């Protein structure tokens, strides 16, 4: 590939990305300043270093044809699974989760990069299985590929990062053309799982009343009866379908297995999620349950954003952030500072810049000459998009607090590099659109 073709990259995406990173550095600087104007943190300098090195990586990724990368995708995937296991064993514990791996004096979060590795290999697998794409076995294997890393990431534990895998898997599966009922099964059973899993906590902290149905969920005997009856009905209709081939048996089976998965999953949700993680969701439903604890963050962040007004309080003039009312200001809650200091104008700027990257990115991958480009492109766009809606939604109180960074903007080398590599892959696809 010729060097001069680097100049053919999509400039609107490139400059939007630069814009976001610049705003990021400015507000990482702002977040490090206390109310008395003392600079407490050097994070912004580190971030500049990460951006510079990341940009080199960005061009490096564009240099290889994405079809070449595809050939390596299985090994990349395997390597990251291996690194994730290593992280669990040797990782450094920060904020109660073992997600950092020391590397030449720097700490990196392998779970960030693992997202790209998964997109690359998952897309590769689904493209290879084009012939049998509508089979259940293909769907199952794809699910295993997508959720194997999640097992290790949840174990760290890092809920936020794990969550990203779900929409990414779903969009790639849809784009690849798997049966919609499989995707819907996954979607609904997931929602059912969370819903049923949260109900006992909801009863305990919000409704504070005895509710008969919830009692079934938390009483072991009743729960076993419920699960077994769902399983029996499911199996019976499976047998019925096998002998009669009637479609209503199929759908009865579908619904009861959906219920069964939801029930069993809810058990997993309840036993696996830590108290504070359940509290985050509870508090999201009703911040007043714990206004001094977890609810505090939601309330404070909304106050920061809301008090920004149209023009904001001015750069470095935010009160909420500089009195340190907000937690994790340079990472999870950086959007709150931007909105507080630059107001509505600043918030819209961020959203518009992301829209340019995402929508323009989708337009570019639409021109890709092969399905692999379509799949990894839409996976990447979904990943960035999910980060954006969760992170901003969290700052304005319409999404639960999950600790997902705002890509390009939030402080942190791993998430920044991941974002840069992702966009580089889109540019990569774009650059090779005329290949025959």
């Amino acid at each position, binding site marked *: 590939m010729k060097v001069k073709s680097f100049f053919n990259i999509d400039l609107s995406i490139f400059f939007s990305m630069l814009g976001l990173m610049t705003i990021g550095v400015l507000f990482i600087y702002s977040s490090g300043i206390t109310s008395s104007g003392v600079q407490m943190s050097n994070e912004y300098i580190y971030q500049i270093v990460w951006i510079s090195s990341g940009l080199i990586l960005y061009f490096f990724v564009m240099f290889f044809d994405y079809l070449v990368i595809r050939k390596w995708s299985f090994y990349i995937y395997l390597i990251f699974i291996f690194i994730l296991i290593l992280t669990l064993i040797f990782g450094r514990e920060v904020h109660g989760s073992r997600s950092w791996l020391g590397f030449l004096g720097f700490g990196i979060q392998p779970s960030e990069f693992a997202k790209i590795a998964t997109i690359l290999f998952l897309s590769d697998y689904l493209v290879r299985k084009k012939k049998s794409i509508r089979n259940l076995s293909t769907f199952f294997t794809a699910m295993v590929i997508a959720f194997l890393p999640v097992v290790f990431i949840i174990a760290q534990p890092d809920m936020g990062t794990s969550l990203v895998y779900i929409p990414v898997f779903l969009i790639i599966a849809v*784009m690849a053309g798997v049966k919609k009922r499989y995707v819907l099964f996954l979607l609904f059973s997931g929602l059912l799982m969370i819903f049923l899993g949260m109900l006992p906590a909801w009863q305990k902290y919000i409704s504070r009343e005895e509710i008969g149905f919830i009692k079934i969920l938390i009483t072991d005997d009743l729960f076993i009866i419920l699960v077994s009856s769902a399983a029996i009905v499911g199996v019976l209709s499976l047998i019925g379908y096998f002998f009669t081939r009637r479609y209503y048996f199929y759908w009865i089976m579908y619904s009861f297995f959906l219920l069964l998965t939801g029930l069993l999953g809810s058990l997993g949700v309840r036993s696996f999620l830590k108290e504070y993680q359940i509290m985050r969701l509870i508090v999201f439903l009703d911040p007043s349950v714990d206004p*001094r604890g977890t609810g505090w963050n939601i309330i404070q962040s909304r106050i920061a954003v809301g008090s920004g007004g149209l023009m904001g309080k001015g750069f470095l003039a935010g009160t909420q952030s500089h009195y340190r*009312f907000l937690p994790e200001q340079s990472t999870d809650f950086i959007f709150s500072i931007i909105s507080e200091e630059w107001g509505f104008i600043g918030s819209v700027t961020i959203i518009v810049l992301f829209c340019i990257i995402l929508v323009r990115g989708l337009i570019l991958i639409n021109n890709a000459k092969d399905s692999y480009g379509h799949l990894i492109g*839409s996976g990447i766009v*979904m990943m960035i998009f999910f980060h954006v809606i969760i992170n901003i939604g969290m700052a304005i109180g319409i999404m639960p607090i999950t600790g997902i960074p705002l890509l390009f903007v939030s402080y942190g080398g791993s998430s920044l590099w991941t974002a840069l590599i992702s966009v580089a892959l889109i540019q990569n696809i774009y650059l090779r659109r005329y290949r025959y």
Partner: protein
Amino acid sequence: MNKDSTIKLKIYLFAGMVIIISIFYIFYLYDLQIRKSPEYQSRARNLALRINTLPAQRGEIFDRNRDNPLVINVDSFAVNIIPAETDPETLETVIDELAEILNISTESIKSKIPDNYRNQYYPIEIKSGVSLSVINRIAENIEKFKGVTWNSKPIRSYLEPGSIAHVLGYVGDITTEEFQVLYNKGYNINSVVGKSGIEKYYDQTLRGKDGIHYKTVDVQGRKIQNVQVDDLLPENGKDLVLTIDRHIQKLAEEALGERMGSAVVLKPSTGEILALVSYPWYNPNDFYDDDRGRIYRELALDNRHPFLNRTIQSVYEPASTFKVVMTTANLEEDLFPVDKAILCEGSIWFGDREFHCHVPEGHGWLILHEALEQSCNVYYYTLGLKYLGIDIISDYARRFGYGSYTGIDLPGEIPGLVPTPEWKERVFNTKWVGGDTVNTSIGQGFINVTPVQMADMMAMIVNKGVIYKPHILKEIRDSVTGELVEEIVPEIIHTSTIHQDTFNTMQQYLRGVITDGTAKVVITTKAVDIAGKTGTGEVGLEDSWNAWFVAYGPFDADPEDQIVVVTMVEAVNEWEWWAIRAANIIFQGIFAGETYDEAIDSLRWGWLRNKRKPQ
């Protein structure tokens, strides 16, 4: 549709979804940052500063001599846990060891820090009233007690516990219900608040005004040092000087002894209360005991009701003491000639009912003052039913302050009852009958009064037509300089149009009760000449009665020098006609300047020394 165009459609749909959600976010931000911005801007200002209270020192309480305080503040500590600063792994052992040092149960600590408090940086009080030596034990091992802190929290010490408890009351942590009532009056959820007595009635004066320590806090409520806002200094509570004389209080307390009942010593010319005794009482210092829960529960469940201040919260039939009101009414209204006699034959029939006198064989012929001296029921039955009638009787009862609040500065007073035919019809839906009037005439039946009202009744006679509001507070003084802030001015609550002559005659009659009447054998004090009236109330017991004695002395002195004494011994005690004896001791003690022991020696009642308790 071929495969390629399907995927392209999906990508366009995806792009559409991205745009729609982004637009939704922009609209939401518009709502948050533009439309609701003013609301959030004010919240941002308010939350930057957090306030901590600097507690004001509670005022001390003195008796009228103002030499030794009755209540002081004693340094003490409260032990707190800051949940977020504890180490979850060692929390269990910390709680165990803390429970042992503080001598409380681990469950009581755990119940105060529920799981959803585990992240908060607010100190949660585990125990108050902890001594310095216990704090030292914690401080020496502070590395073991991660997240445990303490702060100074003075406790009230009641220096002369005893019957004064009913006057002083006690304090305690504010309850949710109290907080709702007192909200916006300078109280917060950690306030210590008066629960009864003077501590409650004058809580606002005693508590002062808490100061405010402003601090700026960060995300988790942790303090930020570099923002300084001037503190608002606390304003200490005022000292109270009571009208109570603690020597007289002690004397009256010992004179009553361990008998359920009460004693009131009142200065009629001002309404000042010199002693207010109600037995049984409680020791407020016990409420700081480690075992306070049990102590409090036992007191609350005790069927002798130690929390009841019988002088203002119990009503009794005035019994024969009511003959004072009856006599006054007849003297003033002149409905039955004072020198005309009525024959007492031990009982009398009205309609189909026989009413008895306390002397079964009868008093014989009696005129008014003799009837009062001998407390003849038959005379007053006749006077009440035939001559005065219930309207005049209840009118005079009211003129003496019965049936209405005295307005004493203690919480929980009840007004008693003066019955009228209208009242009976309203409440019982039955007609007032002659028998009701007969009963009322000797202070039995529906009528009931408190001991303090009884003292006021006598004050009316002493003051010749005026009752001053009975009160406990004499002065409010600055706690630091001792300067007089406010002096309580006597306040008239009842003025009567009854002629002075009537009162003069009444005083002579009441003197007669002591010299020639029912109290003659018992009132033996030589220290002072007194006048008064006995009362013996039927309560349905075979051989015991509610015993009243209401008197004043010195008989011939200026009203400024006179005092009224009311003693009331409930029928549940063994009958020994103790009310009059107690009053005898009280008068002897006050006017001879003697203690209880000295007084009974002077009275040659040494054999009573071992009779603190009814035999």
